[in-house]
C-alpha cells in the first residue's frame, strides 16, 4: 500500500457492467458454471496492498514459481469517492453522498473466468492506481455522460462511454449501500470496458476522463 493513496479503507470494483460485454457473453453465462446471467452487480475488492498513486510504477506480476507472468491487462474506470456515511440510500438520492470523482486503473492477470473470486489475478501489489486527484462532485454535471479512454505508450487503445454501462453510477451506489454501509473516502470503480487492454513490461499507461484528469502509470519488469 502506498502511504499517500487517495483510497480510505475500501476500493469496491464493479465487473461486467459493460452492456456490450454482457451481450457478447450471454450464451456463456447461460451455461455452466454460471447457469444464468448475473441478476445483481458483480463486485470485487482491490485490497489495500494493491492501492497505488498517479505516476508510480505498477509491479509486473510473478507466477507461483517466481517467474514473470506471461501477460497482464488493464482496465480503467471512473472512481466515485464517497463523502459521508452511505447506508441504504435510494437511487434518487445516491449522488448526494458523493464527495468527488477520480480515476481507478485495475491492472490484473488476463481474466478467464468470473466464477470464483480472482484473488490471484486481481490482488497483485501496486495494481490499483487511483488518481491523479479527487475532483469535487459539483464540477461534474452527469457522471454517466463521461467517457474513459485508455492510452498505452501514447496510442489510444480503448474508449468506454459510461452511457454504455448496464447500471448507472447512482444505481450502483444505491445497490452497494444496501449490502454494506460505505464510509467517507471509500471508492467505487463503477465500470470497465469489457475488453481489457493487454500491456507489456515497461508500458506507459494513461487513463483519461475529461474533467477528472489523467492517471499515468508505468509497468515494471522492463
Amino acid at each position: 500500500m502506498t502511504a499517500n493513496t487517495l483510497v480510505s479503507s475500501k476500493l469496491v470494483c464493479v465487473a461486467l457492467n459493460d452492456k456490450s460485454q454482457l451481450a457478447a457473453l450471454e450464451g456463456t453465462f447461460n451455461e455452466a458454471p454460471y447457469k444464468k446471467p448475473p441478476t445483481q452487480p458483480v463486485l470485487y475488492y482491490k485490497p489495500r496492498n494493491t492501492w497505488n498513486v498517479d505516476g508510480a510504477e505498477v509491479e509486473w506480476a510473478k507466477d507461483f514459481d517466481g517467474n514473470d507472468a506471461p501477460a497482464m491487462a488493464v482496465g480503467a474506470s471512473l472512481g466515485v469517492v464517497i463523502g459521508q456515511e452511505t447506508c441504504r440510500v435510494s437511487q434518487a438520492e445516491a449522488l448526494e453522498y458523493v464527495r468527488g470523482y477520480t480515476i481507478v486503473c485495475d491492472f490484473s492477470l488476463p481474466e478467464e473466468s468470473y466464477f470464483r473470486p480472482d484473488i490471484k489475478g486481481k490482488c497483485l501489489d501496486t495494481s490499483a492506481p487511483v488518481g491523479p486527484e479527487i475532483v469535487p462532485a459539483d464540477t461534474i454535471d452527469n457522471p454517466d455522460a463521461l467517457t474513459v479512454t485508455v492510452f498505452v505508450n501514447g496510442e489510444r487503445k480503448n474508449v468506454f462511454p459510461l452511457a454504455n454501462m448496464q447500471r448507472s453510477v447512482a444505481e450502483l451506489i444505491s445497490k452497494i449501500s444496501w449490502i454494506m454501509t460505505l464510509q467517507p473516502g471509500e471508492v467505487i470503480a463503477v465500470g470497465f470496458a469489457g475488453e481489457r487492454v493487454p500491456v507489456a513490461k515497461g508500458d506507459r499507461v494513461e487513463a483519461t476522463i475529461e474533467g477528472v484528469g489523467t492517471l499515468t502509470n508505468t509497468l515494471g519488469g522492463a
Partner: protein
Amino acid sequence: MRHARIIFEGRELDIDIDASDRITTTDGQELNVALDSADITWLPPVKEPGTIFALGLNYADHATELAFEPPKEPLVFIKHANTLTGHKQVSYRPDNIEFQHYECELVAVIGKRGKNIKREDAMDYVAGYTVCNDFAIRDYLENYYRPNLRVKSRDSLLPMGPWIVDRDDVADVNNLRLTTEVNGKITQDGSTRDMIFDIPFLVEYLSKIMTLNPGDMIATGTPHGMVDMQPGDTVVCTIEDICSLETRIVSEKEYYGDKY
C-alpha cells in the same frame, strides 16, 4: 496472554488478559471486573483491521455437504471491516430470505509484514488466533465471484473475538475442537485437524500473490453442520483453547433502526 478491545466505564480500552483472567490495560491499569461481566462491551479484537481473507470449502466434510469436490487450490474471498462486530453483539437476518447460516472459523491474525513467505517460516508472521462467525446468506449466492459480496460482505455478519490468543500459547493449532451451539444445542462439532489447507500453507499461498500486513486476518473455513438462523437465536462459536464467541440474531429492522 490474550488481547482484546473493550468499552468499559465509557472508555475504549486495549486490554491484556492473563492466565488468571486478570485484566490489565495496555497502560498498566488493572481493571476490577470479571470477564463475563455485562459491564464490558466487546469490540472486534483487531485494532486496525486490514484485509480479511476468508476461506471457502476448506474442510473436507463441509465441501462434501455442499456437493462440491474438495478444492485443489484454496477458495479465497475478501471481506472488510464493515462486516466486523464483537462478542455478545448482534448480527442481523435480512428480510425475506430462506437460509442464513453461521460458520465457526479459526482466524489467524497477521503480525508482521511479508511477501513470498516460505511455509516453514509462515508461523513467524502469525501474531495469534481468534474465532469468527462468517455468516452467509445462501439465498443471495450467484455464480459470479462466488461467494459474492452480497452473500459475504454485509454489515455485522462477521462477529469476531472476544480476544486474540498469542500464537505461542496454543500448543497445536491443527488439533482443536470446534463447536457451535444454537440456543444451547450443539449443531456443529468438528476439529481444525480436518482443515484442507492449513495456516502455513495459506500464509505461503497468499504471500506469493501479495504482501501480507499486520492487521490482516485469515479466516480458515468451517466444518459441516449448517442450520438456519432466526431473529432471537443465540449462536455461540467455540474453538478449544482460543475463545467462545456469542452472537444474538436480530431482524433487519431491529439492526438498522432509523435507517431501515
